């Protein structure tokens, strides 16, 4: 038995809250070193939690000692552990990146309160991945949403503030829908604990509960930027400073997706058939539309942000394919992790490329291959995962998805997956081939801290090499399901 003192799940929430507060206390622009140290500890905690779960199975942590339905339960199972691992594994390198990125005088302003905001953001995500209480989840969603909006606004420019405001309004509308859904569920069953609720909801489903499910899911889909709610994402993710974009695109949108998945597997397991198919169609449209927009984007970070819209689409293809064999669920988890690492790498690399060229257009990249080859290599590696080419984790995700679709005879999805991958290759190689062009005569390249380049590379390499360890990830995912 782990000492209650050392419960890793609890510390994964307490620790980021604590360092965010201390960073605030320390003053504007402070807190980088503390954050990195704490994130090392958090990564250790997440690993320990994962190891512990594999050995002893899923577990509950009753906050306050009351237990559901009176109190709030934290629940750690394989799915939570995967999300927690991904979050810490992306956050640590991005923190290292951000420290160097914001050290430039040019970005000082954005760094004023970056660290406490990032700390609260991570705490919100960790709390969300661990909560088993629908109302508590609402609070974590709001915490996450406000932190994300704050980070989008961190740059302070007009475009960023507009993007932040639009993001905030969508987010508030979405969580409003979620909250009304929770209210209806409490009215219908008298509890908001997922574990208590799930058997009740599956047993008896009045119309109000169907509406609640619809409201909550639509809200969460809007937060995950699924087409047609994607419009807020490209300006928000594409306009923020690179480390912020990395956190938002790699992690934040995954949090609401995780919740959709949780609900679909738990209280709303009755929502199958048409509803699941509709979500799948939206996902398929997102894959194609996002990739198409990425192909046309003029600015590098917009391209990467549209790629997020497309890649999120793959996550929603799993809903029509969720079956007892668990293939689709595994595909979803692998895609979350693969895209998380790869997209963080892409944004980190994009930040380097933009700093090296001093421009943010795809066209301005000509000749950059010779100047920051490591970054370009990182971009390519991450691209491998995005395109779903072997041996990356993204490839395994797509393999499993195709496998699941074949097994269920749902051919249409396969075409979408393959076409989406080819379109992804189109926009990734659009960047690479521009970078390989000879540099124009009048181009000037700025030196870039090596640390930024290495972070991008490490993240990209991780997203590819994870493809060789898919079995471990799937085993962890299987805990408690």
């Amino acid at each position, binding site marked *: 038995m782990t000492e209650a003192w050392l419960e890793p799940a609890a510390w994964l929430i307490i620790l980021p809250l604590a360092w965010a507060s201390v960073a605030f206390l320390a003053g504007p622009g402070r807190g980088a070193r503390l954050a990195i140290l704490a994130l090392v500890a958090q990564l250790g905690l997440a690993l320990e939690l994962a190891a512990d779960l594999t050995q002893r199975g899923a577990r509950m942590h009753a906050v306050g000692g009351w237990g559901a339905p009176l109190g709030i339960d934290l629940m750690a199972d394989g799915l939570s552990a995967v999300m927690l691992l991904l979050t810490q594994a992306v956050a640590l390198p991005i923190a290292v990146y951000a420290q160097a990125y914001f050290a430039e005088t040019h970005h000082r302003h954005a760094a004023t309160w970056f660290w406490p905001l990032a700390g609260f953001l991570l705490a919100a995500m960790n709390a969300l991945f661990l909560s088993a209480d629908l109302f508590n989840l609402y609070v974590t969603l709001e915490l996450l949403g406000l932190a994300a909006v704050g980070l989008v606004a961190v740059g302070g420019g007009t475009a960023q503030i507009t993007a932040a405001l639009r993001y905030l309004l969508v987010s508030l509308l979405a969580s409003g829908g979620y909250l009304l859904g929770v209210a209806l569920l409490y009215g219908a069953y008298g509890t908001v604990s997922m574990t208590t609720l799930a058997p009740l909801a599956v047993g008896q489903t009045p119309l109000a509960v169907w509406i609640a499910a619809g409201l909550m899911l639509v809200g969460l889909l809007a937060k995950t930027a699924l087409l047609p709610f994607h419009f807020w994402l490209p300006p928000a993710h594409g306009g923020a400073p690179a480390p912020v974009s990395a956190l938002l695109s790699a992690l934040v949108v995954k949090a609401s997706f995780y919740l959709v998945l949780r609900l679909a597997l738990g209280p709303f397991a009755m929502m199958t058939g048409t509803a699941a198919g509709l979500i799948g169609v939206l996902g398929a449209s997102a894959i194609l539309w996002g990739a198409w927009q990425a192909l046309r984007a003029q600015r590098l970070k917009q391209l990467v942000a549209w790629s997020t819209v497309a890649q999120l689409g793959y996550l929603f293809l799993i809903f029509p394919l969720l079956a007892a064999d668990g293939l689709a669920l595994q595909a979803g988890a692998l895609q979350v992790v693969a895209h998380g690492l790869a997209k963080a790498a892409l944004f980190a690399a994009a930040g380097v490329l933009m700093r090296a060229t001093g421009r943010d257009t795809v066209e301005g990249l000509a000749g950059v291959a010779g100047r920051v080859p490591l970054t370009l290599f990182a971009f390519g590696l991450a691209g491998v995962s995005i395109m779903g080419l072997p041996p990356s984790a993204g490839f395994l995700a797509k393999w499993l998805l195709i496998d699941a679709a074949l097994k269920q005879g749902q051919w249409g999805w396969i075409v979408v997956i393959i076409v989406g991958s080819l379109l992804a290759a189109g926009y990734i190689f659009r960047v690479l081939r521009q970078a390989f062009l*000879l540099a124009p005569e009048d181009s000037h390249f700025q030196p870039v801290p090596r640390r930024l380049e290495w972070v991008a590379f490490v993240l990209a390499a991780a997203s590819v090499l994870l493809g060789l360890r898919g079995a471990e990830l799937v085993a962890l995912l299987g805990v408690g399901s």
Partner: protein
Amino acid sequence: MTVNEMLPLAVIASSLLPGMVIFALPEARVGLRSVLNLLGAMSKLVFVILLLEGVARGEVYGFRHTVLPGLDLVFKADALALLFVTLSTVLWLFTTIYAIGYLEGSPHRSRFFGFFSLCVTATVGLAMAGNLFTFFVFYELLTLSTFPLVVHRGTPQAMRGGTVYLAYTLAGGALLLTGIVWLHGLMGQVDFVHGGSVAALGPQATAQIKVVFLLLIAGVGVKAALVPLHGWLPQAMVAPAPVSALLHAVAVVKAGAFGIVRIVYEVYGVEYAQSLGLLKPLAIAAAVTIVWGSLRALTQDDLKKRLAYSTVSQVSYIALGVALFGPVGTIGGLAHLVHQGIMKITLFFAAGNYAETLGVHKVSELDGAGRRMPLTSAAFTIAAFGMIGVAPTAGYVSKWYLGEGALAAGMDWVVAVLWTSSLLNAAYFLPILYRLWFRPPPAAWPAEHIPARGWRETGWLLLAPPLITAAAVLVTGLFAEAGWSPLAWAKLIAAREYLQ
């Protein structure tokens, strides 16, 4: 982990690790980079010799790593794998030497040699793949690692070539993947085994199996440049000469052809494929490709483009050999896998020498080049004769076996195809030879970069590789019956495939 598990991994690592280090090397470290390159190539050769010796003795080399439940990365170094591994390892060594000379003083060499190493890593990985999944992993890795080489020069023309190359290969990869996952869904993991395993699915799956065959062959057919999937190959010749050598002789088109061999023999099983009537269409596709490639080569004035169309034609000899049901055709096809490699690499080395030394890129500019560069031209001549199929070169041996195989299989029309092809080969190679040796040289070469110094018509790093490979063209032809020849090895493989 046992030695028998480690040896195949060592073959892969011997180019992967130097490649990774080379990426990180500063541009100026020419000496260290060359040492790393050669060290990698030599150690790979040593490992391959160990493997060859072991396989001949009957040892089994393999390695298995589970990626997902029910999905393994499998390596096996069997006789067929080693045929290809040996070819690429030896030719990689020569190409590396050649590339060091060719790229002397040009920019971005760390990047170039890094991807060069990755490319051969992918090739040997693909050769030793023990199941379709592993094959696909390295097949795509090959695409990715060759793209930066194709666009290496960074000119708009190179970019166009690279884009076309990608469009074809990635689309092919998508078809291949669909086929592989489909088959995986039908029967679980598809390991490569002698005699194939698909037959076990039984008659009710026949229709699906045929579609899958089409997907798989179309997928690998892109790299093997089967008509009409060959469009990328002439475009990709914008790459530097060592890269063309790599694409045409060592890695890419060979990977496609090798894929056809594995799929027909070890996934479907040649007898089952024959019983489903899948081999005849393949033979027809190969025959069309052979003739079409030769016809197109006739009209090309750009030397490398002419060689590229020649590749389109020649590589399909391998597919043709596979499609000829029977051991003799198989022997011809497999032997040609090696023979075409050494012949074509010689031709590209020579073409690169003309370009690098004299600035000559076109056939029409080659007048009298034989007098200025006799050694290079001699190598070119030997390889060209090999391509035509003149005795006693290596090309003669493969064509002989293919013809015999066609007769044995009762497909007499194939012999006509072979004759037509040989005549066409002669028609596009002999004018070149005529220009080389019998036309007077021009007053000045288009752009003479390297002056002649005595018998050294060009840099020795450029000169040695084509001479050695040209000698190999002769030796493998003359001593085809020796126990160590590619032909003998092909016979060993054919015996194993048809013993089932």
